[in-house]
Structure formats: C-alpha cells, structure tokens
C-alpha cells in the first residue's frame, strides 16, 4: 500500500508524518511562518502525486448544533452549504456533521453539528501549497473529528463520554455522545509533572462539564459521565491516583501504549504525544466527514476512481477465476471419471483377451468367425436341392404307372413369383414370408380311352392330390379337359384315337 503523508497542523509548528503499515515516521518539520511554507513547497516538489492528509489541532474551533429539514442528496448538500455560509464567513474549512434525525411536531428534521475554525487564514497557504504541487488531498481532519473513532477503539461505543488526550498542541478534550462528536476544546498546557498534569486534566474536565451543562448540551440530571483519559506512557498510576471518580465524572485511565495498541499504531517517533493516535486514525481509517471541499479533494477522488475501476476489473477477474476454478474442478472430476472408466475398460479388455487366448486357434478373429459361420449357415438354410422333389415325384409315379412325364421344371422363388422359377443369376434375398420351391410337371395319361373324359379327369385329379402330400401343396392343375365354366370344353366322340390326354400339375413347398 502506498505511503500516506499527514501534515499535523498546530498553532506553532507543523509536522509532516509518513504513515505506512501501521507505523508513523516524522518526515519533516516546518515552522508556521513564510519560510516554513516555502520549505513545505520545496518538500512537495519532490513528491508530486503523493497522497496527503491534514490533521488540524488548533484551539479556535467552533461547534454549533442546528437543525435542517430531513433531505437527501444535492438538496441536503445545498441546505447545509447555506447554513454553513450563514454561520461562517469563510466556508473553505467548514463541515456539517450529522447527529441523526429528529421529529419536531409534524416535521422531520436532521440535527447537524456545524463546525469550523475561527481562523482559517493560517491554514490557507498550506492548502494552497498542496493544491499547487498537484498532491492528492485525501482530507482535512481535526483531532475532534477523529475522537469518536478513538473512543470506539478504546471501548466506548455508546453513551456520553469525554475523551481526553495530551497532544503536542495541548490538552485535547472531546465530548462524544453515542459515537457522535458534540463538542471539543484544546487547552494549552505547559510542561508538567504527571501529578500536575492529572490535576489539570481533572480541573479542565470539570470546567468543560459545567460549561456543557450550561449550554444544555449535557443534561443536568444525566448522571455521571465517563471520562476516558489517555495518560502519557508510564504515567497511568499517577493519573489514576489523582483522577478519582465522583457523582458527575467517572474517570477511566488508559496508558498511551495500551491506547496505541488498541488503535493499531505499531510505532511512532520519539516526542510524538497523543496526536499519534489521531494521526494514525487519519491515515488508517479516516472518517467520511472532514473539512476539505470536493474541489480540493478532486485529484484524490479521481485517484480513488482509478483504483476503484482497476479494483472492479481485478474483482471481476477474481470472480471469473473462481467460477472458472469451479468449472476446472468439474473438468478434473470428469477427467478422473473418464480415466477410471478407461482403466476399467482396459481391465475388461485385458481379461477378455486373456480368456480368448485360450480359445481354439483360428486364423481369424472371433467376431469374423461368428459372422462367417452364421451368415453361411443362413445362406445354406435358404438353399434348396431338387433331389427331394424328384424322390417325391418318383414315389407318386410308382402309384400311377399310366402317367408319363414329358417335362419337369423345378425352381425356387418368392410367393409373388407364382409358379415361375427364379430367373437364373438373381440375387437371393431373404423374404419375411419365406421362399417357395415350385415344381411344374407336364405329362400324359396312357392306358385310358380318350373318350373316357370322366375317368381321365378323375385320374389326373388323384395324381395331383397325391403330389400335394408330404409337405407339398398343390398350386395349379391343368386337366386334359377344361371342365370349368370359364374354359372351353371340346370333344370328338367316335373319332379316331390320337395322342394321349396331356395335363400339367404345379405344386410347391415352403422352404425353411
């Protein structure tokens, strides 16, 4: 983190501290006169674009409580600026601190504490020097503005309390109510022994208490008010001995070292008194409310914006990286899952290979062996041979010696092909209905008179019926005489006996 410079502004001398990593280092000291301002300008020349804050610890401060309508945004800002302009002649270093909302009658108002310095002229040249140098002014704070933060760090988070510290400028007393600054004053203090300083603290606190009671800032019947006193290092015992609580004030003394530890100040230069606490708080956790205007802080605001933009980008990157990281976790899981599956597949394949190695030796793969034999078997089962049909025909002819066969046609084909045998060379295709073996037998009927058409017809019908047995099915019979109504019946009664009557029988068998 970049170092921050804090100008500690007192009535006499001004000290420039460098704050980094919880440590304070005194970088320079300037007198309050013109040579001091020149030296400061010279100092700033070498620190262009540096980050500066101003911590004012002056006696002349004004605190005035007021009420404004409860507004927000620019309207509120305009009203507050008008109120500040009404109260202070120079509003360059004036601030309005919110004390919370209040309801009066039907209106809702906001209580504000208007505060400024009675003499801002001494500060102006130093702020001008900062502006001219191009430094980034984070803010102008006063010790009272930081007192609520100090009180919180020291354990006072609510109620009324006086925060008393001994700074290089004098004895700083701040009155804080429920974490809000209500009043503060700085009383010059000469070099004193611890007991004297403690007595001074007691008397000044009593005075302030009475003053605030008079102003009705502190109610009379409010009960005892806590006084938190930060004693210089090693003087706590002396302070506690002097600072006895009574019905109005309850003193609690904290050693400076203990207070520094509470605010997180690790190291400070020798000679830096109670202001070290305020300087550290101004560097580490500055309050939102301060004296510098937004115009004076413009470079700082732009600088903050630059950092905010980059931080947003970085945050986006981190968010994307986290999201991508989650996806990568899924990737790793998916890859390990795939690797696991691949290992199991390899193991199964190895086991398969080991087992198949014990199979009978072939010159082909198991897959091809199965395919070759299965397909060949299918083809062979679809194949037919004429021998069975011939044997069947031969057996039937033995029963019908008067029948003489002239021609025989055997073939295989699908049912749609009718009696026609399959054309030679046609590719056999498996048919869901199966193929048929078809036989067409043509012949003559001997030893029967042609004129005996009833006898011949009966013999052919018996012959055809005999062929249509033993798994064979009679498909068509063409008799020597067409006795159907659709055909033509001819006869030659008394004529000479010529050729024997001819017939044709077609029968089929379903192939497996």
């Amino acid at each position, binding site marked *: 983190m970049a170092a921050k410079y804090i100008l500690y502004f007192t009535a006499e001398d001004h000290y420039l501290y460098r704050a980094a990593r919880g440590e304070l280092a005194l970088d320079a000291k300037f007198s309050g006169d013109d040579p001091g301002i020149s030296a400061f300008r010279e100092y700033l020349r070498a620190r262009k674009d540096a980050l500066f804050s101003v911590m004012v610890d002056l006696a002349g401060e004004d605190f005035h409580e007021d009420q404004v309508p409860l507004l927000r945004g620019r309207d509120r800002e305009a009203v507050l600026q008008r109120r500040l302009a009404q109260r202070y002649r120079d509003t360059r270093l004036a601030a309005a601190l919110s004390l919370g909302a209040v309801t009066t009658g039907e209106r809702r108002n906001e209580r504000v504490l208007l505060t400024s310095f009675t003499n801002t002229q001494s500060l102006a040249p130093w702020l001008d020097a900062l502006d001219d140098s191009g430094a980034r002014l984070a803010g102008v704070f006063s010790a009272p503005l930081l007192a609520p933060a100090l009180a919180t760090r020291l354990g006072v988070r609510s109620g009324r309390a006086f925060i008393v510290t001994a700074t290089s400028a004098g004895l700083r007393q701040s009155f804080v109510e429920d974490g809000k600054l209500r009043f503060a004053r700085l009383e010059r203090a000469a070099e004193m022994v611890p007991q004297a300083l403690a007595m001074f603290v007691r008397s000044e606190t009593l005075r302030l208490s009475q003053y605030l009671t008079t102003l009705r800032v502190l109610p009379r019947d409010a009960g005892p008010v806590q006084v938190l006193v930060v004693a210089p290092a090693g003087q706590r015992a002396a302070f506690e001995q002097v600072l006895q609580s009574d019905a109005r004030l309850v003193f609690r003394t904290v050693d400076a070292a203990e207070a520094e530890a509470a605010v997180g100040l690790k190291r400070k230069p020798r000679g830096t008194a109670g202001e070290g606490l305020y300087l550290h708080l101004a560097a580490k956790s500055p309050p939102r409310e301060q004296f510098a205007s*937004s115009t004076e802080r*413009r470079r700082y605001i*732009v600088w903050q*914006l*630059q*950092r905010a*933009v980059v931080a947003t*980008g970085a945050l*986006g*990157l*981190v*968010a994307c*990286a986290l999201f*991508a*990281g989650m*996806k*990568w976790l899924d990737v790793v899981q*998916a890859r390990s*899952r*795939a690797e696991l*599956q691949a290992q*199991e*597949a390899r193991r*199964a*394949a190895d086991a*398969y290979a080991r087992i198949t190695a014990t*199979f*009978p030796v*072939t*010159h*082909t*793969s*198991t*897959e*091809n*062996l*199965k395919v*070759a*034999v*299965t*397909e*060949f*078997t299918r*083809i*062979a089962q679809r*194949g037919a*041979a004429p*021998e069975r049909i*011939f044997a069947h025909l031969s057996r039937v002819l033995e029963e019908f010696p008067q029948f003489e066969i*002239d*021609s*025989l*046609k055997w*073939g*295989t084909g699908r049912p749609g092909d009718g009696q026609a*045998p399959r054309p*030679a*060379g*046609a*590719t056999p295709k498996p048919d869901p209905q199966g193929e048929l073996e078809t036989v067409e037998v043509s012949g003559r009927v001997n030893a029967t008179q042609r004129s005996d058409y009833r006898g011949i017809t009966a013999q052919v019908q018996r012959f055809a019926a005999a062929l249509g047995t033993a798994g064979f099915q009679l498909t068509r019979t063409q008799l020597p005489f067409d006795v159907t109504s659709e055909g033509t019946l001819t006869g030659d009664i008394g004529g000479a006996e010529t050729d024997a009557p001819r017939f044709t029988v077609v029968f089929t068998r379903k192939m497996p």
Partner: protein
Amino acid sequence: MTFTAEELKKLALPLLAALLLLGAGGGLIWGADVALKAALRQAALAQRERQLSTERLARIAEEEREVKEKINVYQRLKALNIIGEERRLEWADAMARIRAQRELIDVRYRVERQRLLLSAPGKPGNVDFYASTMRVDLALLHEEDLLRFLGDLRDSGNAYYAVRSCSMSRTGNAGGGATLVPRLRAECSIDLITMIDRGARQ
C-alpha cells in the same frame, strides 16, 4: 461530478486495464467451459467403452461355447476352399472329371461374372460373400444322371453350390440303337458361392 478531458485521460488506462482483466476472466471461463465439454465427451466415450468391454466380458462364456461350436464349420469351409478366392480352374476340372466319371454324353456350362452377394460387418474386417452363377446344359440317358451330377458337383468342393433352378424334358429320341442317344435334356442354374474373410490373418 463532471470530469475534465485530462481526468478522463487519467481514467482511460485504468478502464482499459479493468476491461483487460475482465476479458482475461471471461477467457478463463471460456477455456474452462471448452475443457469441461471436452472432458464430459471423453468421459461419456470412456463410459461407453467400459460398458461394451464389460458386457463383452460378461458374454465370454457364451462366446466361448459359440466359438467352439462354429470353429469346426469354419475350418471345414476353409478346407473346402469355400473361404477364399474363387477357383474357376478347379471348377472346370471338376466338371470335366464328373463328365468322364459319369460318362455323360454332353455337358455344356457357362459361369457368369462374379457378383457380391452379401457383405457382413465383422471386426477387424467384413466378411464378403460372392456368387458366380453357372448355367449347365446336360444331355442325359436317365433322370438319375442329373441327381448324380449335382451330388458330384457338391462333393467336388471349391464353392458352395446353391441350385436355383432345374428343368428336364424328353428329347423325343427313342433308345435301343447301337449308339447312345440322349433321351433327356436338363438345364440348371447353380450359384457357386465363395466368401472372403477380410479379417483373417494371411
């Protein structure tokens, strides 16, 4: 708050840096997304592979029985030269031998061009079945000569003989002379089937 040109210039670089950072973040997500999709694909493939391997392993007992059952048929087909390139010269030899042995009067044949009957998918290669149709014209003395011819043809090997059609008719010549005259004519169409195992080791 209105920014001046100089202030905007000061903000330009951080804005660019922020955009680059956001772009890098987007790139990280995109890269992770691509990797995730690839990994999921790979996982799905591996799962399928494992499933197939496991199923194949589970079926191994059945497969062993099947192999033992089929190996004899396969070896028989190999021995008969049904598996392998077709052997037309051997077919011609067989026809001549059958004619001589059976004393057939006239045997005419013509073998057509080979054609692919079926290509069965196998691993590592397919098993292709081919057919060459042979048309045979025979002059016969007796019907049984045809059946004997077909039987001899089947026994000769070198192909699987699938008889597709046969027709037989009388020639009208009466026997009884000094010379042998064919009484019957037969015409047959026979597919000579062979197969090539593309996955077989040479």
